[in-house]
């Protein structure tokens, strides 16, 4: 797939995502929130630390920051034991899929609060936008994450 078609594909998926908004699932459908994280974005840094993954999202203001943490069971953390699951197209269709780099700080604040009640997952952009993107039985790797949004103290 060429770079141009990749960009068009990304644009198409972004436009579809723009129609969605972060909301709490009250229907009991157990709808997932899935964040697509692009390591190559200027606003996003991804670190592998002590067997876990940290994502730092920056904003225009230096005192605003959002973080995602995926802490797998192998780390033996006292509080977090995040799962890694395979999700297909049907799962994605039933989920709220959001592009991390499109979210503003207030969205992250909402996600931080929602994360106290329901699970939030992250799929890496390179997986989500891989050339098998439209293969029907393609499975994406979704990492459960914990979200924080830090404003000025």
């Amino acid at each position, binding site marked *: 797939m060429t770079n141009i078609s990749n960009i068009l594909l990304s644009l198409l998926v972004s436009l579809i995502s723009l129609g969605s908004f972060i909301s709490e699932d009250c229907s009991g459908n157990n709808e997932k929130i899935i964040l697509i994280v692009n390591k190559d974005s200027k606003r996003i840094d991804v670190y592998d630390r*002590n067997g876990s993954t940290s994502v730092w999202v920056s904003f225009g203001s*230096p005192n605003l920051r959002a973080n995602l943490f995926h802490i797998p069971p192998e780390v033996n953390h006292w509080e*977090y034991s995040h799962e890694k699951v395979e999700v297909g197209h049907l799962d994605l269709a039933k989920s709220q899929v959001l592009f991390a780099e499109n979210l503003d700080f207030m969205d992250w604040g909402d996600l931080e609060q929602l994360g106290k009640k329901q699970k939030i997952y992250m799929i890496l952009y390179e997986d989500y936008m891989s050339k098998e993107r439209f293969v029907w039985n393609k499975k994406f790797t979704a990492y459960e994450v914990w979200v924080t949004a830090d*404003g000025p*103290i």
Partner: protein
Amino acid sequence: MGIEEKSRKVKSGPTTLEDCGFLQMMGYDLECVIDLFEIKKDSTFIGTTADCIYEKLKSIDGFKDLASGFEGLGTEFDVILKIGATQNASANGQAWWRGSNQPIEITFNEIKMNRSALEVARTIVHEMVHAELYRAINTTNPTEKELDFRETFNTYVMMYRGSADQQHNLMADEWVTKMGEILKDVHQMLDSDGYNTFKNVYYPNGIPDHFYKSVAWDGLQGTIAWNLMKNITTTPPIKSPLEIITQDIDNVKRGRKNCL
């Protein structure tokens, strides 16, 4: 000023040291302890984890120094600690100067109280520094030290626009090391088991001093000192100051939330 009762045998507690002493002479089993801090707690604060953390901080010398401007009878300014909504919904806390006849109100954002205990301690110390700066600027009986401080602060007023910028720049230049020392002293007291587990996982060779200083830096991003520090580059594998701070802040978030 108040009296802390360790063992209570009377229905209503004594309110002054003299009353307490008198009751001791009368044979009541009371321990009279002077609470030096004129820092009051709102009902929203009492009994919370933040309250527990604050009580631990009170035993730290550096924090006592910080709070000493509010101690004893006849203080000009009181501080009241609350937990609730902050004006900026995303802030961890706020210190509000409401005028010279009003207590300085420190509000901790209730939706941000679920962070690690050391992060909450950092917010308490950070807001107390704001309160101390408000006090030192506004006192009508300044000491020589406070007069010197005002001169220093005036240069920050000239250099930076908003009061938050002025105070944060001053804090970054003058307070980060002290704040780090307070956090270092209180860490083990918050939950000794949690401290040991944290140390074993993230800093098996011992928690370095830079960890606490990094934690104190959080919230001071955007200050001149921060920007100068951010621009320092190193050759790998030596980590730059920014990389060290980023990793330390990443780690502190994973710490225990308990205060025991």
